[in-house]
């Protein structure tokens, strides 16, 4: 349990998907104009990440690796299989959202199917493989990463709603400001891990 919480907290805050690895930036920047839609997309991402991560873990372990079903190293199929799992999960989410909340469905529009190409989802699965997580670790990583993504998009959406009333130079308005705000948030989140004094000390 300790390890589970450890990975959860770490992937949600310190190694935040958006703010430390820049995964899923496209939808993060495009859907963060209002808190309401950002909230819905954030929940969808938590769900998709939380579900695809264990499924992809099982596929990787029992189909693709050498001690899997076929007894051969099939890791070159990883990208194709992972993306197929993700695409079908997103399709599922799309159907559920359309049934449960048509308003949210129309607000999210094209960005709901685009969760498929949200780098955070595939990136999470690939990180899971490269870090050699086990099943419970990958569940923690999926939920934590999704939660971190959710937090980041809610925060930036809230800031962007307010910054509309500020006097930003015209050329920087909108996208440019969103980038700079994300950079500042990245620094803030980084300090959650505690800053290594050596980072700012310069070369010896």
């Amino acid at each position, binding site marked *: 349990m300790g390890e589970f919480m450890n990975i959860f907290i770490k992937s949600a805050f310190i190694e935040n998907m958006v703010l430390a690895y*820049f995964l899923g930036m496209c939808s993060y920047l495009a859907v963060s104009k209002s808190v309401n839609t950002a909230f819905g997309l954030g929940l969808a991402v938590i769900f998709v990440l939380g579900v695809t991560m264990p499924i992809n873990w099982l596929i990787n372990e029992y189909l693709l690796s050498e001690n899997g079903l076929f007894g051969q190293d099939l890791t070159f199929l990883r990208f194709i299989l992972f993306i197929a799992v993700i695409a079908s999960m997103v399709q599922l989410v799309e159907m559920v959202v359309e049934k449960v909340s048509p308003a949210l469905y129309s607000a999210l529009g094209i960005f709901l199917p685009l969760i498929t190409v949200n780098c955070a989802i595939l990136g999470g699965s690939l990180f899971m493989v490269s870090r050699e997580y086990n099943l419970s670790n990958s569940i923690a990583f999926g939920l934590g990463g999704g939660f971190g993504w959710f937090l980041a998009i809610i925060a930036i959406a809230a800031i962007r709603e307010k910054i509309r009333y500020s006097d930003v130079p015209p050329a920087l308005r909108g996208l440019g400001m969103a980038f700079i705000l994300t950079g500042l948030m*990245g620094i803030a989140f980084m300090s959650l891990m505690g800053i290594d004094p050596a980072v700012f000390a310069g070369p010896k």
Partner: protein
Amino acid sequence: MAEVKNVEEVKEPLFGKVEKKLITDPLNDNNPITVQVLGICSALAVTSLVYPSVVMSIAVIFVTGFSSLFTSLLRNAIPKPVRMIVQLVIIATLVTFVEMALKYFNYPVYKQLSVYIGLIITNCIVMGRLEAFAMANKPWRSFVDGIGNGIGYGAILIAVGVVREIFGKGTLFAGSPIEMKLIGANAGNVEYLINTAAESGIGSWFGWYTNNNLMVLPAAAMFIIGIMIWIQRSYNTKLVDVS
């Protein structure tokens, strides 16, 4: 937007006006990163050094070009409801190919780029161009459009990489055969293919500079791209976001 009307069958030059526009448009007016806001993830994550950024750009140009070509060839045969999955399979195959090639030819850079090579699959530029252009245009034009967008992406990637590496590490092309030490403590050691340390040159003027470690952090990339957008939009005022 880069929209091209289907003209009747007239003999056209292989590289006419339309193709030229498809190449130049993504460099400024319709840049995938600063205007369309696609494919940001890798733009930020791999740019702390120039060399991996160059490799990444080449990989993306390859994938955008050929995925557009293949999608365009297949466009009349793909049924609408499953088109995303077909597109993803095309992209994933090409990316697998790139990954294998890179693993074989340049293992250190493969290690450095880690998961981001795989993430070309979910790079929105690739998918975006397939949806917006390749599904409606002829193969050659789609190929050119893909290459053009890849170049527009690569240009930003390398620009960010150059700024981050020079100010963050004081080097240029670190890790590649033409590694150079430009500024900082050991400035002036411009190393070319063989390790000959030069005591003169532009590098030696900047001996006083201390590396700015903020530039190595991911957040710096956000600031740099934000400032790039600022500069671009102050010159190209029609891009300014009025909302």
